[in-house]
């Protein structure tokens, strides 16, 4: 007896989708209705997600629910949904974080003109993301994946009157499309090889053993192509450039999309098709997983360094997100799938908290985003300060009470055991220090020190905004209960093992190592930034390095000079070809036609027409000659009759 929710899992994305459509049809003035509807839809989705989660607790391996979407020829395209621990935790995390963000948005967007549209988009986004999570078919996942992309486009460019927002939306859409192209190709290839796109299908799914064995050597290429989709969506190097620009959207959007859920889709995808990556592994190492690891390491370290030199409060968090996603990718790559997903979930909570906190700060400072103009907000916005500190410590990985610490430690464990190379482990340790450093920098600039221009008139946010912060802060702390090595419940749940309570595992070298590293990072941060003024201390010490990092390693400029120039040139050439070559051909053909037309016209005019004219001229001449004789005088006619009579008489007389 499978629980009711397993067969009706589609309801979870369907509810927000229906809500979104209803809100779109509402009038612009129905603000309260729209917000209430969106939140109600999200509460319903959360309730269903919890039901699904409870169902997996009782029976972790529910059978997938598949059905035929359409058939062509002998082939049938089948889609369906699946409920496993991976999907279940994601469902709960997404709906819970979304709910907090929806509530926060009511306060943050209170004065926006397009309030209802905003909630419609948010609901739509949430529906698409939930669809990605429950999909049991790569095709359905891809469809929802693209819907997520569309939703992010709509939300990043929500303030369409801002040219920078429109540009950022376009950039996000196009950059992720580059990755999606690879994803699509990988999907086609996989379908060509295995003949199915279902993940689980009673042993016949594309990531189950039978199909995997038929893939053979092409599995690596397919996995890498699919990974390119994840690279685009999760903002991994070299397609990470869209993510920081996406901060042009309203802050709740940044929290929802670029911290908690959408960027998680890439990591989730890799975890979902993990058997493709790990096929034929020798001691847990495959070529595709090695690529994942190195991309993740590059991303994590590079964006952590860039975050160190950013001044926009949201951009720092954006680069921090990119860095953390790199960390998750590393974890997946070295074989720590459960650790990566745990960090994903924990990160979802505390990054949403940080973004909403940043939103609260921006709201309080009257839309100022430059941290160098803030400062001393600790006293003015105590609630925001407290919750933000929780988020900061969770992100930096302060041990014992904060969820990020435990998950990060699991990842460090996993990297330490990777047989291929020790370098990622070392770089990850450096990443921990950097994370603590840039977060300390941000905290000091925003909440400590003297009050600067923007913070002079700052105020605490209304309860509708601070309540979600508190809920998320509680999640960020409370979540660590199921993460500690003493009782690694979530880890066991995700990897399908039994959990044992063992306090002795709490004490281990890695804990002290990470404690030391975090402490070093924070101490270093305090040492450098405690007297920071309007100019960044790092800029004073290393101006060249700071400029390099501040300009995001000139990667955007590099793309401008290479990819974009190339694309522009190609467009120009095509334009020229179209305008002059093809158009010229078409015009030449048209010219021939016109020439022929002119020829027949002149033949008509001067040949046939002239002949007819000549003939009618004669007739007319004759006519006018005769008509001239018609004087209209009745007596002339009578005279003619008389003359005719006379002539007849004479003729008669002459004949007889």
């Amino acid at each position, binding site marked *: 007896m499978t629980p009711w929710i397993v067969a009706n899992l589609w309801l979870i994305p369907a509810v927000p989708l229906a809500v979104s459509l209803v809100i779109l049809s509402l009038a612009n003035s129905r603000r309260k209705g729209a917000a209430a509807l969106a939140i109600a839809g999200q509460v319903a989705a959360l309730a269903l997600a919890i039901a699904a989660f409870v169902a997996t607790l009782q029976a972790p391996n529910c059978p997938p629910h598949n059905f035929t979407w359409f058939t062509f020829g002998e082939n049938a395209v089948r889609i369906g949904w699946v409920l496993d621990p991976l999907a279940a935790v994601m469902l709960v995390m997404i709906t819970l974080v979304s709910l907090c963000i929806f509530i926060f948005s009511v306060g943050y967007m209170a004065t926006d003109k397009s309030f209802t549209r905003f909630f419609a988009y948010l609901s739509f986004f949430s529906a698409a993301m939930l669809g990605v999570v429950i999909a049991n078919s790569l095709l359905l996942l891809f469809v929802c994946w693209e819907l997520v992309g569309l939703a992010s486009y709509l939300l990043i460019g929500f303030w369409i009157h801002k040219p920078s927002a429109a540009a950022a939306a376009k950039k996000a859409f196009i950059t992720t499309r580059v990755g999606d192209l690879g994803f699509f190709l990988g999907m086609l290839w996989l379908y060509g090889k295995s003949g199915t796109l279902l993940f689980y299908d009673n042993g016949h799914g594309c990531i189950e053993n039978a199909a995997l064995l038929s893939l053979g050597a092409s599995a690596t290429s397919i996995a890498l192509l699919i990974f390119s989709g994840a690279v685009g969506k999760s903002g991994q190097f070299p397609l990470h450039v869209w993510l920081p620009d996406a901060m042009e959207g309203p802050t709740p959007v940044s929290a929802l999309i670029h911290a908690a859920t959408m960027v998680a889709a890439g990591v989730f995808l890799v975890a979902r098709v993990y058997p493709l990556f790990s096929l034929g592994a020798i001691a847990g190492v495959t070529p595709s997983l090695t690529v994942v690891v190195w991309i993740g390491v590059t991303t994590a370290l590079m964006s952590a360094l860039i975050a160190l030199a950013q001044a926009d409060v949201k951009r720092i968090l954006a680069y921090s997100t990119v860095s953390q996603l790199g960390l998750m990718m590393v974890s997946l790559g070295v074989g720590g799938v459960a650790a990566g997903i745990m960090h994903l979930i924990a990160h979802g909570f505390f990054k949403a908290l940080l973004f909403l906190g940043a939103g609260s700060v921006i709201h309080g400072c009257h839309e100022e985003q430059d941290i160098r103009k803030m400062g001393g907000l600790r006293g003015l916005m105590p609630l925001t300060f407290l919750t933000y500190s929780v988020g900061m410590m969770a992100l930096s990985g302060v041990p014992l009470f904060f969820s990020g610490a435990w998950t990060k430690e699991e990842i460090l464990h996993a990297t330490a055991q990777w047989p291929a190379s020790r370098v990622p482990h070392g770089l990850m340790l450096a990443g921990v220090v950097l994370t603590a450093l840039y977060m300390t920098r941000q905290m000091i600039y925003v909440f400590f020190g003297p009050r600067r221009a923007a913070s002079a008139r700052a105020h605490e946010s209304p309860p509708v905004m601070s309540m979600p912060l508190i809920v998320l802060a509680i999640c960020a702390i409370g979540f660590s209960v199921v993460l500690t090595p003493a009782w690694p419940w979530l880890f066991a749940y995700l990897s399908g093992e039994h959990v044992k309570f063992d306090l002795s595992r709490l004490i281990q070298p890695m804990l002290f190592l990470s404690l030391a590293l975090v402490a070093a990072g924070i101490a270093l941060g305090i040492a450098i930034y405690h007297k920071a003024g309007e100019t960044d201390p790092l800029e004073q010490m290393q101006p060249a390095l700071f400029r390099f990092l501040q300009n995001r390693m000139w990667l955007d400029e590099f793309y401008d000079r290479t990819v974009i120039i190339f694309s522009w040139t190609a467009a120009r050439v095509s334009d020229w070809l179209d305008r002059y070559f093809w158009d010229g051909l078409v015009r030449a053909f048209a010219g021939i036609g016109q020439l022929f037309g002119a020829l027949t016209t002149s033949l008509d005019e001067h040949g046939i027409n002239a002949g007819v004219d000549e003939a009618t001229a004669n007739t007319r001449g004759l006519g006018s000659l*005769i*008509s*001239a*004789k*018609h*004087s*209209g*005088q*009745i*007596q002339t006619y*009578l*005279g003619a009759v*008389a003359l005719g009579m006379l002539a007849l008489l004479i003729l008669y007389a002459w004949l007889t």
Partner: protein
Amino acid sequence: MTPTLTSFLAVSAALFCTGLLAALSRRHAIFILIGIELMLAAANLNFVAFWRFGPEPQQITGVMVAIFSIAIAAAEAAVGLALVIAVYRHYRTTSVDKLDQLKG
């Protein structure tokens, strides 16, 4: 001297020529009508003369034709006069020189 057929025919021809002359030369519509009446009278005279000097003068065929012809002439004169009056009302003239709308 007994009148002969030839003398009747001569009178008739003179009458006809007078009528034709009047119809061709006068400009007034009424006089043209009178000319036509004269030509009709010439024709009637011919009928009667041919009958009187014909093979069977006992039967009054020629007189009967003449009487019919006179009746028809009366009707024709009435129609003609009505036409003249209508033309006069329309054009304010009875001079046939001015009536040349059928000119080609």
